[in-house]
């Protein structure tokens, strides 16, 4: 779940003008707040030890800093996840909706909180679980997250890379499984479609 939090927020454009080796992530993401709404495409590749071939999924993502996040998978199947402060909504390939209120699932609530905080560029929220380290220049930077003991049994390492905008991130799990998400075609000026606004409306 934390992976979601990371992925969705980091794709926001990072337009920091200054920077150098060993920069604090806060400095690199100081301009995250400038973009209240973002659309982008993604490709997620999951390489699991027990699978003989990786599973690749593609789709698009919408980050609305106030209302929440829409993660829309189009391949290999139609799937939509909507994460809001109220909880998580899952719309399956058959259009079946499965809602989980934040109240019933503390983990989900936690994720929502992290995501909202990150959407506002509050990196400090991640510091409860990771040690963060920024590197590079605003044009070619990398943030490395090493888990603190509390997260160590779930995540081995996270690496986030980007230039003017975020380009990819890579998550490794202790068992050797890994996930990579690559983002493309960021659209900053696109308003929410009617369908998207409906999904993000608090239920």
């Amino acid at each position, binding site marked *: *779940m*934390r*992976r*979601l939090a990371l*992925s*969705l927020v980091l794709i926001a454009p990072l337009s920091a003008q200054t920077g150098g080796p060993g920069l604090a992530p806060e400095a690199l993401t100081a301009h995250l707040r400038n973009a209240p709404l973002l659309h982008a495409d993604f490709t*997620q590749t*999951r390489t*699991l*030890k*027990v*699978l*003989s*071939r990786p*599973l690749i*999924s593609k*789709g698009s993502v919408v980050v609305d800093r106030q209302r929440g996040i829409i*993660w829309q*998978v189009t391949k*290999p*199947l139609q*799937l939509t*996840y909507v994460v809001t402060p109220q909880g*998580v909504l*899952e719309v*399956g*390939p058959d259009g079946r909706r*499965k809602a989980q209120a934040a109240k*019933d*699932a*503390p*983990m*989900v609530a*936690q*994720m929502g*909180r992290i995501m909202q905080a990150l959407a506002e560029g509050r990196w400090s929220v991640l510091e*409860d679980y990771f040690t963060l380290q920024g590197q590079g220049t605003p044009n070619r930077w990398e943030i490395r997250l090493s888990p*603190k*003991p*509390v*997260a160590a*049994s*779930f*995540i081995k390492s996270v690496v986030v890379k980007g230039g003017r905008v975020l380009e990819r991130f890579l*998550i490794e*799990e202790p*068992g050797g*499984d890994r*996930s990579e998400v690559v983002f493309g075609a960021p659209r900053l000026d696109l308003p929410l479609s009617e369908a998207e606004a409906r999904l993000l409306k608090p239920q």
Partner: protein
Amino acid sequence: MTKLRLRGWLWILALALLGSFAVLRMRSGHAIETDLLAMLPATERNPVAEDAVQKLAQASGNRAIFLVGGAEPARSKAAALGLIRDLEASGAFPQVQGTLKDLDPGMVPRFYAPHRFGLPASEALPDQPESLLQHLQARLASPQAASFGLGLAQDPLGDLEGFLAKLPLNGGQMQIQDDLLVIQGRDGLYVLCTAALSGSAFDPKVQEGTRLAVVKAEQHLAQAFPEVKLLRTGAVFYAIDARTRAEREMHLISGISMVCIFLLHLLVFRSLRHLLLGLASIGAGLVTAAAVSLIFFDKLYLLTLVCGASVLGDAVDYSFLYFANHLAYAGEGGPPARQARSASPLALPHAVPEPSPGTASALTGEGSAWEPWEALRRIRKPLIHGFLTTMLGYLALMLAPFPGLRQIALFSMVGLLGAFITLFCILPSFLPGPAHPRPRILAGIRGLMARAQSLAQGRRTPLTLAVLALVLGGLALRGRIHDDVQGFIRPSARLLVEETRIRELTGFANQGIFYLVEGADEAELLNREEALVSRLQPLIRQGELDSIQALTSFVPSPGRQQEALQARRRQAPALERALRDLGMRPEAIETLRHDLDTNRLLTVNEWLQAPFSTPFRHLWMGPTGHGVASLVLPLGSAEGPRLREVAQGLPGVVLVDKASSVSTMLAKDRRMASWSLGGALLLVWGLLALWYGPRAGFWLIAPPLVGILLALAGTALLGVPLNLFSVLGLFLVLGWGVDYTVFLRGCQGKDGAGVLGVSLAAFLTLVSYGLLAFSHTPALKGFGVVLGWGVLGTYLASFLALRQGRTGP
């Protein structure tokens, strides 16, 4: 001093023995019980329910809970670490849990892994490979594919993850940050810290250790982090609060009583001897009371000691009467006025033994012939009558079903008996000569007596009395009845505010109400729990409950586990095909199949062994007389009647609501006690009629009746609610009131000795019990208000005892 008689020596020996016994018991510790709950009687018909109440109180009672918070998260955390260090360093707590260094989040999934195929799935999936494949793909494509459970290889459909996410482990709002349990509040970040007590929350030693440690830690916090707030809750803080307050009140009340006793003796008798003798009789009363109570009871309740402090005021009543008699004789220089009064038509031949001719003549000789034993013999009858009627009053308390009230009754009865025996065995030996003559006091008292007599004889007195009774009765009807046990003890406002805040932040709820579930064996018990939980689910959806704590959240019933396992075995071929289609390696599928084949059903016992079950082990009651039992805690705002209604008709399920059971019982007993008060009035009247004749008997009982009416009217006017304790207070008013009237009537020939004795006694009782009216404990306050007004009314009306029939000679 005349020679101490044999019975005097015997009584002193007995007191020494009783005293050493009491001291030994007190020294051995644990002779004083500060747990107010322990004073309450068993209310549940089912002994397992009583047991559950105790167990639950222990589970939540033997720890202190702290929240440290402020607007700046880093400061909150630093402050919390400081608090944890301080508490650990204090040595008062065997375990302080604040940092979670050893916490391994992988522990819970590993525990459930061998049982995972028996855990119910949150949604049933069809057995077709196509839809299962779609589900698997969706899981991998979702942004939250990172697993908190066992991952795709061991938990392909995410059932275990779903089960784990629903566990009530992650107490609602709490998260872990920097190895600390934190909660995000509106006004900042709060860090949770709990400390296990080194013993019972009601052990004074534990309380003192806790108090000192917390005060010190609080001072450090205030210095280093002035802006950070410290919230606390836990039974121990309430117990400390109640104990320090009770002790403070006890010291104050007994202190003021003592000062009054001291001043009265010095002012009235002008002799240290009278004071010392008065104190001796109080001391003898207390020693006897404590020793005998400790024979019959394991521990003395704190409330007993508080009430015992006021028995001090009462124990001197008997010696007062005797001393007053002493003074009255001493003051006699044989003036004709006294002779005339002594021979007045008001003297009751059958009420007071006529002084023997020898004594009567001796009285004229400057009191030189004061013979202490003879003097005592003369007032013996009113003393014994008064003592017996008072005992009758306490006997009513003795019949109350509260162990605490019984103890108070026993303590008081034995204490009074001790004082009484001291009076009869020892006191006269120390009063050989006449007292300092106090002509002015005696003149005043005689004047009072004369006025009282004429008032008592007044033609209109009965009418005035009737009108007064009507007015007071009318006022009394406006009284408010309130039997709720929670209103009896009022903790400090600060503790309540802090507890409310902690409850808001953490979601920890009041555990006063719970379901007790019983079954013949574990399987039946868990089945019944599941039936209950499914009935409670709608209440969660409707917001009436926040959550439910139940064993079955952790250990599903064997039936449901079996069912889930069979469903998964049916589904296995389709799932294997879907996994193959997804690209899972054959050896991984083989491992999965093996795990499914060797899945073991989870038992409560296994769960109890797991470290993470510690905070929930109180849910399991274990074996009972007829099976096993467990608790289900409904956490939220739903109240007793609603919760009872929801569980209606479920076999083996009872709602236990201790507070409301106790309140219901208190109400029942209050009604019962009110009726027996009426009975006691008739009984005492009968006794008095037997001793003094029916008409005189009425005038002897009329003053306490006035006192009772005034007490009721007074409580109504002050807005103090009436409860069982008030009614029991009325019993005491009756007992003492009859004391006064019997003394007055019995001693009226003794030149105001009766009036003096009764006035002193009433004044002291008014002071010592009336002071309880200012207590911060509502139960004591109500008692004090009733007794204060009651004694005042009785005293003011007691002159009626002097009323004679118009048929006197």
